[in-house]
Structure formats: C-alpha cells, structure tokens
C-alpha cells in the first residue's frame, strides 16, 4: 500500500513540475505576473543568468540560459577565472542532472515518506546529543560560519570527497611546512613537464597551455609539453613527448629529473630542456599522484615563475578534518551531500552503527539507503549560496528555478541543527554580503557571477625546501585508481548524457573499462571485454578490461563511478564494480575470469590505415615549408560552377594543435541541439546520436591523435544530391541544411557522406519523460523517429543573431556555435569565411579533410603541430 502511495505522490509531483514549470517553478522571490511583464523576460526569448556549479567545494562560474523560467543550457562565465567562458562536459550536462526523474523527491524515514517535522525532531535530539556532521568540502563563507557555531556548540564536523585536493596539499606540507595550495600559471611557460597531470579538464590551465601553443606559420616558438603518465590521458594526446610509466615510477622519474635525468637519455634531454627554459620551465603533477610526487614536483618547480602557492581555498583543506570520521559514540550523524557509503566502503559499515543518521542528497544512492532519514537536497541550479573558485574568487550562486522537489540546502540543515528560526536563503545571503565583499553590491555581484580581485593572495615566502623523498619500489601490476573524466567519483553516474559520452582515448561508453596495455593484456591472456578480477589481500573487484595502446606496462587503470548500487536507474545500468573497494591498494593481482561482455566502443578501428586523416607535423617542418599541406587545400578540378551566395558565409576552423579532446564540445552540442541518448545496446549497434564526435586514431608512430569531426558543410555536398525529397539542401549562407519534416529516411545521404557525420533516428529515441523534456532547447526541433539529423552550425543561434541585427539595424554580432563556446582552448573557431575565418584559413597548416573528394568543406582544420625536443628522436 505504501509503495502505491509513494508512486502516486511522485506522479503528481512530476505532472505538476511538467505542466506548471513555466510559472510555479520560478524562484518565489522573483515571480511576477506576465500582466506586468518584467523587461528581461519576453516569452520565446531566452534569458541568461550568472551562477556557479560547485564540485568539491570549488565553484565554476557559469551563465545559464533559461526559457520562460526553465534552465536549458549551461555556458561558461567569461568573467569567472575558473571558467574563462568555457566549461567541461560535466557542466554542460548539469541541466540533465537537474531534470533527473531519479532525484530524491520526498523526505523519507527508513524508506517511508515522512514529514519535515520528523527531521526537525531528529535534529532537535541531535542538538542535545553527540552529533557529527559530515559535509562535502566547502568554501562557502556562509557554511563556514555555521560550522564555527556548530563546533562551539560541541558538534564535530568533518569533510569528505574522495578526489579532492588532498595529495598535493600533503606533498606541499612536506616541502613547505604547511599544506599550501599550488597555483600553476602557464601564461609564460616554455617547457612543461607534466607527471600524470590532467590539464585538459583544468579549464584555466588548458586555456593557458593553448595560448602558449598557437601556431601561425611555424616561425614563432610554442610551449613544449612532456607528459609522463600511466593511463593515456587527453593531456598525453596533446603532449609533444609522452612516456607511459607505472604510477610508482612517476616519483622515481621526478627524482631522476631532480638529479638532471640520470642515465636515462630521454630524461636527461627533458632535464636539459627544463634547465634551458629557466624560470619558464615548470613541472606539474596530477592530483591523483601521491604526496611524495607532489613534494618532488614542488622542488623541481622551485625556481619557476609559473608556480606560486596560496592558502587552500577549500575550508580546512589538508587538515585531519578532511578524513572520514570514526563515528565512535556518535548518536546523530548528518551526512550533508556526497556519497561516502559508496566512495568509502569501509565507512559504509560504520554508517549503519549511528543511532540516527540523516542524509541530505540529490539521489537515493548508497548513502541514502544506509541512513534513517533522507532529505532531498537542492541542485546547484536551485539554490542560493556563495562559494569560491579554484583561485579563491568569490562566486555568488543564484537559483534559476524553484527547487523542483522542495529540496533543502546544507545551510538550512545546519540552521535547523543549530535551532535557528527559518530564514530565507536569499535574505541571508544579501544580509551577509556587505560583510563578505564591501566593494561590490550584492545585485551587481549576482549579475556578474564573480567578484573581481577576491582571489587568494600568493604567499611570497613559500619556497620549497630540499627534502629527500624515497620513491616506492616497482611492483608487478600496479593499480591506478582515477576519477572518471565525466562521471568523476560516481556523483554524475546517473546522468545519461555523461554515460553516453565517449571517453576520448578509449571511446568507451556506458561500461567501466579497466585499462591496460596490449603487452600486459597479452601476458595475462586478456582480450577486450574480458572480465578480470583485481584483488588485493581480501578485497577483490571484477571489471571488464579494455586494451589501450600506449598505456603503461604492468599497470591497470580503473576509473571510479561504476558498480553503483543505489536506486538510481541510470547509474545502475553500466557493467562494472566499485573501484573504491581497492582504494589504497598499490599492487593488485590480475586474473582473467571466464566472463566476457561486449563493450560499447564507439570506434571500431583505431588505425589510420595510411590515409590522409587528422594530419599533423612538427613546428620545424611547418616553418621550413616541408609539411606540404597544399595538396589538401588547393582547389580540385571540377565541372561544377559556383552557386549564388548571399548573406554571411559561415565557416569553421578546428585547431588540432590546441584541441585536448576534453569532449566539452560534444556535450555542449548535445545540450544545445537536443540530441537523444540511445543506450548501450544501440551504441553497440552503431547508432549513437552525437552530432559532433572526437575521432581518435593511433598513428603510424603509435601515438594517439584526435580530430573533432562533425558536419563539414561541404559546398559541393555529396549528401544533398542523393536526397530524393529535397530534405537536405544548401542555404545561400553556405549551410548544409536539414529539413527534418521533409525527411522520409532513405539514409542515402548518410551513405554518401564521406565523413559519416549524419545521425539517424532508428527508433523513437527522444525522451518522453515530462521532466526530462523540460531541459530541451525550445529553439531546436526534437526529431522524430525515422529522420536524419546532423550538425547545423547551431543555425538557431545564427538566425537569432541575424534577427537581432535586423531588428536593431546594425551589423551582425557573430554568434558562437555551442561547441565553440564550450571549448576551453578556443580550438574551434566559428565565423564568417571572409572575416573571422579568413586569417586562420590562410595559415600554412590549414587543410580540408578528405580534400580529394572535392566536397569543398566549409569546416576545415589546422593540422596538429607538435614541437618535439630535437634531442629526442621519436
């Protein structure tokens, strides 16, 4: 009976959310009748609000597009230093996380719906007894103040997130004496040695690196990047030189570099290169590397102008309060956010011991299932708060929409625990604002999305001291546990967009893939998709293996975020195991089991087959004119005459040198253009729907190269002349246009597309969930079954810009396509053929893909230019 009640309640809530979204879900404070229409809100015209998305206490400033009160698209905030106008794929997918039907919708006590009063009572008891609050790492001054008050009242507080900045702070503590935060600035870097660093997903660093690697004609120098890592990362793809080593080898490599390279000629050359660069050389390390490595790296970068130190931005980061608590004698436990029962299996056992446990979260995940009371939390797009960016910049967070399921914020829970009178979140923030930032008015800060000049100051006297570090010894098979680039620690695992986003190097979707090198796989008799058992003492997990050429020998990389056992339907779908079961283990035993699963890998052949695809060369070759890309650019003989053209001539240029393969563009495209999710089976069948994909090849030298591939908008488009019903035609502006309503679905256009960038709705792939539908972009048609679709150059944005220009009688403001806007490195340049694109297209390394097909693509490429160290061959 109770389950029936629950489902009926949910149904009503969903129906309400769907039908009344436009009015009932707007923030209560801002709601106004349309009779007195607010000037910023015109039906049919999108409005944009600055806010921030927070991960592990650090804010990324974003601008959110809203249509009639419902957020539909996240863009980076150019005024926010953590974003610079760009986003990662994770931010792009946030809208789908907001409209997730699996989100917690009711307060429950042991699975049964409960009133808020039950929470109030529990917290009132907690106020008197021994209470512990476990939070996600935070940088919010509001929450920090509340934590101070709680501690004064005798409540203990700790913070937990598995992949927060922990190792770097600990490493810095070794050489600097205290856990300071490393601040890397590559603006002036000439030589960068990255030890397992992940620059592609670090937006400011990715942009700085790209700016240092702009190739015009090969005459001006560009920064050189060395990547020494275990698993093939997107940074490794960008790097000029890459070396794959066991995780423990990293520290030995760093030690060797410190000693001038030792007897390894490769390392010696790197060390000489670093030395030549002087203070413009820098060594960085990835966050998942151990503290010892960070201590070594700090020493290596000691004289570099690219590295500075500041106090940690996250509250109490690097201190013991960022470890999981013991819970000994705790009566009431509040878990406010996170999913510690999943990210720390050891903690899960302790969790059950607490008398009363209250969980505030977005999902009925493992932790929610282990706690007595569960309270739905607010999504970042539903709440008022303030947080700091990675560099300390103060960032106000404002809601785009009233909490869809009446969620509560962390501050609300803490206030309740403290026994405060209920207070409106906006009022609280507005009241606290003058104390926080005397220099900027609250409303101005909200509009801006970031408060300038609030970055944490660098500590001038922080000089790393020489401390001898003992590097660990090599082992047979070493485990590298890493956050999934898109699912992170599993918190985004219920987001189908992210599940179906191919990881750039493996092109794997939906399932977990334990990565290992071909030689290691061969030695253990493992093939792609074989389920392997990884064990360390009494702990063991079974995960499917995926073979990655270029992965380090004797190591296995296991991404987190799989093996989810909560009630989230999407997160439970992939095949995999909880990698945190093996957290802390270094050496693992690798055995093949008899099971085999079919992995959904979006690209079957990794080889280039000696074809002129994803072209590249070295800087010196380019400078000396030896690259000879003319034959991939010059006019091809043709009988066809030019067709009449009018209006702005749109074109795109994609820079393969600066593209990191972070896949933000792919996700941005999906979010902007309502491309559907098809599921693992369909991906295996070859029916993925991404309009933009990142092609990955292993070139003749064994290196992985990438090339974003989408509709090339050919001037002599092969797809158009084979369509029997004029469903795909050419616009006078040079767009290859698709008229969905006219398409009968012969698929001839796809057959004749040499780039195979067209996507077909083999089934009714679009979402029928009323909640999911709220996130759709109303300016883009949702495609029906049996219809072909593909990249449109975001024609809806072009038309908007043209209309705006026409209404205001001015020249057109060139819009950015969704992919170009999201790109952290500005590798995608969009504009008019004769204006914005003209200069880049004249560069000597500009070329057209499959040029010999005579398609005359409007989208062209800048070849991938490497800057290898002449001392290193190969």
């Amino acid at each position: 009976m109770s389950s029936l009640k629950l489902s009926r309640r949910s149904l009503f809530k969903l129906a309400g959310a769907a039908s009344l979204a436009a009015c009932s879900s707007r923030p209560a404070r801002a709601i106004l009748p349309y009779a007195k229409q607010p000037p910023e809100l015109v039906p049919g015209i999108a409005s944009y609000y600055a806010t921030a998305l927070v991960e592990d206490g650090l804010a990324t400033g974003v601008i959110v597009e809203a249509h009639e009160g419902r957020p539909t698209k996240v863009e980076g905030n150019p005024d926010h230093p953590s974003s610079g106008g760009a986003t990662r794929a994770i931010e792009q997918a946030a809208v789908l996380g907001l409209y997730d039907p699996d989100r917690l919708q009711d307060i429950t006590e042991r699975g049964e719906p409960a009133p808020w009063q039950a929470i109030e009572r529990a917290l009132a008891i907690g106020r008197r007894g021994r209470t512990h609050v476990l939070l996600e790492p935070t940088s919010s001054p509001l929450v920090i103040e509340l934590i101070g008050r709680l501690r004064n009242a005798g409540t203990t507080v700790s913070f937990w997130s598995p992949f927060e900045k922990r190792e770097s702070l600990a490493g810095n503590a070794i050489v600097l004496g205290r856990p300071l935060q490393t601040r890397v600035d590559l603006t002036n870097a000439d030589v960068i040695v990255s030890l397992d660093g992940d620059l592609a997903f670090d937006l400011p660093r990715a942009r700085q690196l790209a700016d240092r690697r702009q190739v015009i004609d090969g005459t001006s120098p560009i920064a050189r990047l060395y990547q020494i890592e275990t698993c093939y990362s997107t940074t490794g793809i960008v790097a000029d030189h890459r070396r794959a080593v066991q995780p423990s080898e990293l520290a030995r490599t760093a030690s060797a570099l410190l000693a001038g390279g030792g007897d390894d000629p490769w390392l010696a050359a790197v060390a000489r290169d670093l030395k030549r660069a002087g203070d413009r050389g820098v060594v960085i390390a990835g966050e998942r590397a151990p503290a010892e490595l960070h201590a070594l790296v700090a020493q290596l970068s000691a004289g570099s102008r690219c590295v500075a130190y500041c106090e940690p931005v996250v509250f109490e980061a690097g201190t013991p309060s960022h470890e999981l608590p013991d819970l000994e004698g705790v009566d009431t436990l509040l878990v406010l956010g996170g999913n510690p029962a999943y990210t720390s299996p050891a903690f899960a056992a302790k969790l059950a011991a607490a008398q009363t446990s209250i969980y505030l979260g977005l999902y009925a995940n493992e932790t929610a299932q282990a706690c007595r009371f569960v309270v739905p939390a607010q999504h970042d797009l539903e709440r008022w708060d303030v947080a700091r960016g990675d560099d300390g910049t103060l960032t106000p967070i404002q809601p785009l929409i009233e909490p869809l399921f009446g969620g509560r914020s962390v501050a609300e829970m803490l206030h309740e625990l403290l026994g405060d009178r209920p207070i409106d979140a906006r009022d609280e923030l507005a009241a606290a604002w003058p104390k926080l930032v005397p220099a900027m008015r609250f409303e101005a800060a909200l509009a801006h999305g970031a408060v300038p000049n609030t970055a944490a100051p660098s500590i001038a006297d922080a000089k790393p001291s020489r401390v001898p570090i003992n590097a660990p010894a090599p082992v047979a098979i070493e485990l590298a546990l890493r956050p999934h680039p898109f699912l992170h620690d599993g918190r985004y695992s219920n987001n189908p967009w992210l599940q179906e986003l191919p990881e750039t190097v493996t092109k794997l979707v939906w399932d977990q893939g334990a990565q290992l090198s071909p030689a290691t796989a061969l030695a253990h008799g493992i093939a792609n998709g074989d389920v392997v058992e990884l064990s360390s003492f009494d702990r063991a997990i079974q995960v499917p293996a995926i073979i990655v050429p270029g992965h380090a020998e004797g190591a296995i990389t296991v991404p987190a975020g799989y093996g989810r056992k909560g009630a989230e339907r999407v997160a439970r779908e992939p095949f995999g195991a909880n990698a945190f079961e093996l957290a802390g283990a270094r050496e693992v035993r690798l055995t093949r089991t008899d099971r085999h699963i079919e992995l959904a890998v979006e690209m079957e052949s990794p080889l280039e087959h000696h074809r002129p695809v994803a072209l590249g060369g070295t800087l010196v070759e380019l400078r000396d004119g030896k690259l000879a890309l003319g034959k991939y650019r010059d006019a091809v003989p043709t009988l066809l005459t030019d067709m009449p053209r009018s209006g702005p001539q749109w074109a795109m240029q994609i820079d393969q040198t600066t593209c990191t393969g972070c896949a933000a563009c792919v996700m941005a495209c999906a979010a902007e253009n309502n491309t559907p999710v098809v599921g693992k089976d369909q991906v295996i069948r070859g029916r993925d729907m991404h309009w933009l994909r990142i092609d990955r090849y292993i070139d003749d030298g064994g290196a992985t190269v990438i090339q974003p591939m989408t509709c090339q908008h050919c001037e002599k488009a092969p797809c158009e002349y084979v369509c029997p019903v004029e469903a795909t035609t050419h616009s006078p502006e040079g767009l290859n246009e698709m008229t969905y309503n006219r398409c009968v679905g012969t698929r001839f256009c796809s057959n004749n597309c040499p780039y195979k960038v067209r996507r077909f709705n083999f089934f009714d792939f679009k979402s029928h969930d009323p909640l999911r539908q709220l996130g759709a972009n109303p300016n883009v048609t949702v495609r029906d079954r049996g219809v072909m679709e593909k990249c449109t150059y975001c024609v809806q944005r072009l038309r908007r810009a043209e209309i705006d220009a026409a209404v205001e009688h001015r020249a057109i403001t060139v819009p950015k396509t969704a992919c170009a806007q999201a790109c952290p490195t500005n590798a995608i340049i969009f504009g008019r053929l004769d204006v914005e694109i003209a200069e880049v297209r004249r560069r000597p390394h500009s070329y057209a893909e499959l040029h010999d097909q005579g398609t005359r693509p409007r989208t062209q490429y800048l070849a991938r230019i490497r800057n290898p160290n002449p001392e290193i061959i190969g």
Partner: protein
Amino acid sequence: MTAASAAAEEADDPIIIGNPTDEQLSDQLLSHTWRPMSRGWKLAFLITGAGTLMLLALITLTVLRGIGMWGNNIPAAWGFGIINFVWWIGIGHAGTFISAILLVLEQQQVRTSINRFTEGMTLFAVVQAGMFPLLHLGRPWFAYWLFPYPAEMDTWPQVRSALPWDAAAVTTYLSVSIMFWYLGLVPDLAGVRDRAPTLWRRRIYGLFALGWSGSVQQWRHYKIAYLTLAGLATPLVISVHSIVSLDFAEAGLPGWHSTIFPPFFVAGAIFSGFAMVVTLIIPARRVFKLHNVITARHLDMIAKMLLVTSSIIAYSYICELFLAWWSGNRYEMFEQLHERPFGFYAVGFWIMITCNCVITQALWSRRVRRNVVALFVIAVLVNVGMWLERFEIIVVSLTRDFLPSSWHQYAPTWVDIGILTGTFCFFGLLFLAFLKWIPFVPVSELKELKHEELGK
C-alpha cells in the same frame, strides 16, 4: 543412345514432344484452373501462406517500432533491405528477358512454353522487391513524397538523386510487366472462359477476358501491340537494373563509384533471374507433368544462358579489381583488393566467387546441362552467390569507407532474416496461386507455334 543420335537430337530437339491436338493442349494446359489441386500444392500453399503471415507480422513490427528493428546502422545505413531489393528485382529481369527480348529477336522456339511462367516470376519478384524500398524508409508512410504531386508547400522530389529514378523505373517496370503479362493472357483467359466447366469460373474468367472473341480485327491490333510492348520492355529491362546500379554508382563510396556498374548489374540480374527460372521451372515441370512442353531443350538453352551471363559476371569481377588497381585511388584499392577478398566479410566474397564463377563452369558439359538435379543445384547456388554479391557491394563498401573512425560492423537482426524468409514465402504463395488460377503456359501461342512448325 549412340553419340550420333545424341548429336542429331541436339540439333532437332523438339520444342513440343508428341503431337497433341489443339484440344488436348488446351485441356492439358488450362484444366488446372478448374481441377482440384493436389495435396502437395495444398501443403505448399499452407506453408507459404503461414510464411506470408509472418512477413506481414514482421512488417507491422518494423513499421510500429521503427527501422531500428533491422540491423542497419551508421555507417551501414543500407543493409538487408536494399540487398534483398536488388536481388529480387534482378530475378525479375530474366522473366522479361525471356518473354520480351526473345520475342523481339524472334526466338519463339525457346521462348514459348516458358514465357508466361517467367513473366509471372518477374511480376512476383518485382512485388517482393518493391516492398523493400518502401519498408526500409525511416518513415514509410511518406514514401509518396518521392513522386511529384502539387503540394501545398511547393515541395517536389529531388530528381538528381537516383532514388526517384529508381522509383520511376520500378514503378514503370512493374506496370509494364503487368500490362505485358495481362495482354498476353487475354486469349488464354478466353480459352478458360470457353472451356471451364462451371458457370462461375466462366463468368470470372470471362470478365478478365474482356469479351475476347479472337476475331481478325482483334488479332490485328493485338499482335502489333504485343510486339510493341515487348519492344518497349526490352530497353526497359536494361534501364531498370542500370538505374538500380546508379543507386550505388551515383554515390562516391569506394566500391560503388564505378562506370561499369550498369552493364555489370544488368548481366548479374539476368544471370540470377535465369537461375531462378531454373529453380522454379524444374519442380513445376515435374509437379504439373509438363515434360512435353517444357523440354530438355528449354533447360539446355537456359543453362547456356547461365553460362554466358556467368562469364560476363566473372569478367566484371576481374574488371572491378583491375579498375581499382588502375585507379591508384587508395580507398578504392583498399576496398576491392583488401577488404572484399580478405576483410571481415571475406567468406561471403569467396562463396560468391565460387557460386557465380566457378561452379557454373560445369555447364560447359552437356551432361550437366541435361541433368535436372545438377542444374537445379547449380541454379540454387547461383541464387545464393548473387545475393552475396549484393551483400558484398553494399555492406563492405558502407562499413569500410573513407574515415576509419566511422567504420562499424553490420549484422542483420532476426527481423531482417525473418523478412527475407517471408518474401520467399510470399513469392511462393503468389507463384502457387498463379499456377492454380492462371494459364501458366501460353496455350494460344503454343498452338500457333505448333501450327507454324507443322506448316514447315
């Protein structure tokens, strides 16, 4: 039999065995329309009927759920649907070839007796073929958009695409085949009308006979019109498979973009069609005891035709390989010289070569040509080989085109296989119905031929 007599027999092998009177011929060849059918026929009718119902169910499923029920994907956006289409329409070609081209070339001796039969085969094969372009659409209910009609939005078909050409060609082919078939039938329908024992049969056949009386006034126009229609069908049959081949040759894909495609496809079509004629005629001849009108000489001539077309096909295969190498085009060379013979689907390629070019060499032997069982087995294998040829052309080219990043394997689903099986059954059902209710040997023409033979 001595060698001399065998040679003599080859020269003067009779077209009609024995000397039946006109009445006997009529009774033999028309009476099946009113006599109860054998149990074998009924059983076959039931089986093919059940298969046809399955076909209907699978078509319903495809239309309800979407084309995703088939194995198609990106890059292999065409799969079983188009393979089956090309295969079935190719089979149709032999029918028209025999009945129209041989008439125009005044080869009545070979043609008569089997022409009606092959025309029926054409018709029913085209019906099977015609289903696929419709069904394979993402939105089959909009298939009429391929035809011009004055639409509100001024939308028209896009005639640079080979698909409207195809639509026009297949529609014309089906229409002209029906016309040719029906016009040829009229005198025989009159025969049934005048001979059938029951009033209802006489009325129904009489309706379709249009009141044919066989007057000179009627024969006068009829003969010319029939010959003209045959003359029209001759270039038509060549154009249809040429246009079908343009569905591929028009595209730029390696392995598709080739100027030899039209003649290559036409030869392949006639090859597979003759194989199907043999596959059908040998059992029908046995069941209906037609040895006196469909004689060993007919089979021998068809077998020779198989040998000729097989040689053309073999030449085309060599030509394709040579052109790929001669072009120097890396995609073309990879496709033809690597992927088809040694790639993922190489097994299909070698079976195709074996069936289409190697096994047919046995037909050089007169003994094989006159051996009903051997001929039947070869014909079935040729059918298989020709299906695989279309598979190789369509699937290998699509799954291995320009960018290796887009390569993806293709595999049919159970629905694909079910629909292909279903079309066999539907074809069989139509054929059984044809054998039951329609005079399947042109009696009037046979009598004319006999009369002319005697008059010599």
